[in-house]
């Protein structure tokens, strides 16, 4: 006979064994942790720890030519404010970000809409559109350096043939044209990725919505504004984020086209020169941390927007 206490106890409470390691692992939560662990370890090893070390070193003076690594506080950060080369590099970088992100978004959306509307040959055109993105950035930049070449470049040749310029121009000797030239090469390389992201989103929109809009008398622009864009806003956010981050990281295009010229030197070029030519590592690290924070800050605007647009509650 069971005692009254025992009768009140949950049935089989005493008999339920604690789950073993295997059972715990095979539970949903445990499996999730196990599957995520390799990524967590890799991210910690290759991203979080290096970032933390870089941030720590940026508060020290790390220069292999000087003894010791004394703590210098925010000196490496405040120094950036009075360094004309850094200010100039930031100015160039902001130009790249503003111009490249806008162009990549507009052209990427245009290409995605075009591809989405195609009934035949879409896969071939998609392959052609993706090609610049698939090529290494240095190869892209080399090809464009030939196009911009003042002596035998295609650009000067075409413009002179159509009478738009009288004589060959050295595009990299004028800041406005040099910045535009570098931006165009970057846009040419990165726009396809936006097109693919947006095309994937466009293909998820049910056809019935367009038919309903048509019945309601919506024109093409109105349909784009009221049906298409709201339904691909998540993808637009992703495209904006990746465009922003890659624009903050422009380096290859500017370096190949104009070497270290101050007219086009982006902040990544300034970091390279500071850290690897002048060997001022901690100053370079402070610049890197700043770029990372700024690009996270700008991108977080899009990410928060996506979160609001796509959350389930």
């Amino acid at each position, binding site marked *: 006979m069971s005692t009254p206490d025992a009768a009140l106890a949950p049935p089989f409470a005493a008999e339920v064994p604690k789950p073993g390691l295997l059972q715990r692992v095979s539970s949903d939560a445990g499996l999730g942790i196990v599957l995520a662990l390799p990524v967590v370890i890799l991210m910690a090893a290759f991203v979080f720890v290096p970032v933390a070390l870089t941030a720590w070193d940026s508060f020290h003076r790390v220069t292999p*030519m000087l003894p010791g690594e004394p703590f210098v506080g925010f000196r490496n950060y405040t120094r950036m404010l009075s360094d004309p*080369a850094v200010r100039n590099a930031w100015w160039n970088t902001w130009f790249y970000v503003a111009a490249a992100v806008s162009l990549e978004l507009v052209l990427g959306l245009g290409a995605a809409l075009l591809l989405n509307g195609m009934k035949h040959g879409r896969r071939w055109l998609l392959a052609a559109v993706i090609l610049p993105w698939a090529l290494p950035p240095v190869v892209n930049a080399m090809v464009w350096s030939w196009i911009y070449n*003042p002596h035998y470049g295609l650009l000067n040749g075409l413009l002179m043939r159509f009478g738009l310029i009288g004589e060959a121009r*050295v595009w990299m*000797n004028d800041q406005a044209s040099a910045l535009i030239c570098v931006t165009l090469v970057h846009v040419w390389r990165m726009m396809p990725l936006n097109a693919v992201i947006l095309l994937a989103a466009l293909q998820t929109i049910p056809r019935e919505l367009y038919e309903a809009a048509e019945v309601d008398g919506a024109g093409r622009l109105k349909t784009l504004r009221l049906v298409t864009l709201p339904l691909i806003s998540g993808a637009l956010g992703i495209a904006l984020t990746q465009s922003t981050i890659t624009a903050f990281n422009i380096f290859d295009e500017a370096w190949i086209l*104009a070497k270290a010229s*101050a007219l086009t030197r982006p902040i990544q070029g300034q970091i*390279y020169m500071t850290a*690897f030519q*002048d060997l001022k590592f901690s100053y370079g690290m402070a610049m890197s941390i700043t770029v990372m924070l700024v690009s996270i800050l700008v991108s977080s605007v899009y990410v928060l927007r996506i979160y609001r647009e796509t959350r389930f509650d």
Partner: protein
Amino acid sequence: MSGSGSGKNDKTPNMELEMRFSDHFRARRCVLGLPLALSAALVAAMAQAEEITVLLPGGGYPASVIEEFTAETGIEVDQQTLAWDQLHTRIITALVAGTAPADVIELDWSWVGQFGAAGWLEPLDDVLDPSALEQVSVLPIFQAGGKTLGAPYNNDFKMMVVNTAHLEKAGITAPPTTVDELLAAGRAVKEAGITEHPFGLPLSVGEATSTAWYLITMMYGGDLFDADGNPAFTDPESGGYKALEFIRTAVEEGLIDPASTAYGNPEVREAFKAGDISFILSDGPGPLSTYNDPEKSAIAGQSAASVVPNVSGETRTYGLPEALAVPSASGSKDAAVKFINFVMSKEMQENVYTLDGTLPTRKDALADLNAAGTLESGDAIVAQVGAVGPLFDGGTPPWYPPFSNAAAAAVNAVAIGQMSVDEAVASIARAAEDARAEY
């Protein structure tokens, strides 16, 4: 069932089982033993054939030189080469990480201060062949803190290279020896329509541009710093100031291609080889053999070295030799030193000059080549060698790279028209003072 009842042999089941196990283990031993034996043989072979890595710019040493070294010493050489622009970064990143990018590495004259202060290199004073120490006059350039950090193998110094056929067409009988003659010759070549932009000068933001500015400063009889270490190029009468004015004038007159603002040395040399320019104002004797090689150049037989023009009647130039060095982190220092001593011998320096045009650093090798008539533009080179001096009297300082970057950026800005000469000299002086203040 198997075996015992077959009647094919009279072994008991136990015996058969033992034999089968025995065969099995024998087979396993073979399977396990083979890789072990192979590994042992491999380890033995590796122990016998020591290997070193060598990291150099351009094409490195000719294959026949490497083969001769291996045949003589039994040491295998894995030679890796990189373009000049990538070499510094490749070496620095490895050295900063405390590893050796190779057992023998390139050491440019401009890196000596940095590398010496960082303590990345093995001193070579006690291990270099004494004859190399005696015969190489540019050795002090590679000394820092009283220690020799590199063995100079490429006797690079600045001089002018001209296209003699272009000069002849323009009615110029001898290469210009003064700055005024140089400008007049350039204008004559341009007016005759022989080349649109007669002067080749790198003007991108890079080492080639700053070193070109130093040379033109010397053409005007100037120095970069005075005896107290203060900038000596800010006065409008100074050589450095006039050098910037020369560059600005030459670009404005079209004597220098405006596209040179994106050129380093390779681009200028390609233009010269194509016959698009008539003078390389800031070159060295090394590439002469390439310019005169019909397989590599459209102007073969037309190029000659010429002494650096001047304003005082006395030519001046400076050395920017390259050396071989051994990183402190190298695991094969002895073999690396053997390689360095091998290529630093007189015979090998002469051999390498014949094969790829690398100008010897040894005085005896230079004398032999000139006596044999194999030194291209030998008279001009010998005349110029006597006027080679160091750019920095006390050796290349650790703050040189930021100073050089600032100088190149200012020269580039003057050529583009983004800065006046006054602004440029002020910015270079400011950068020099800032860089020096840090060390």
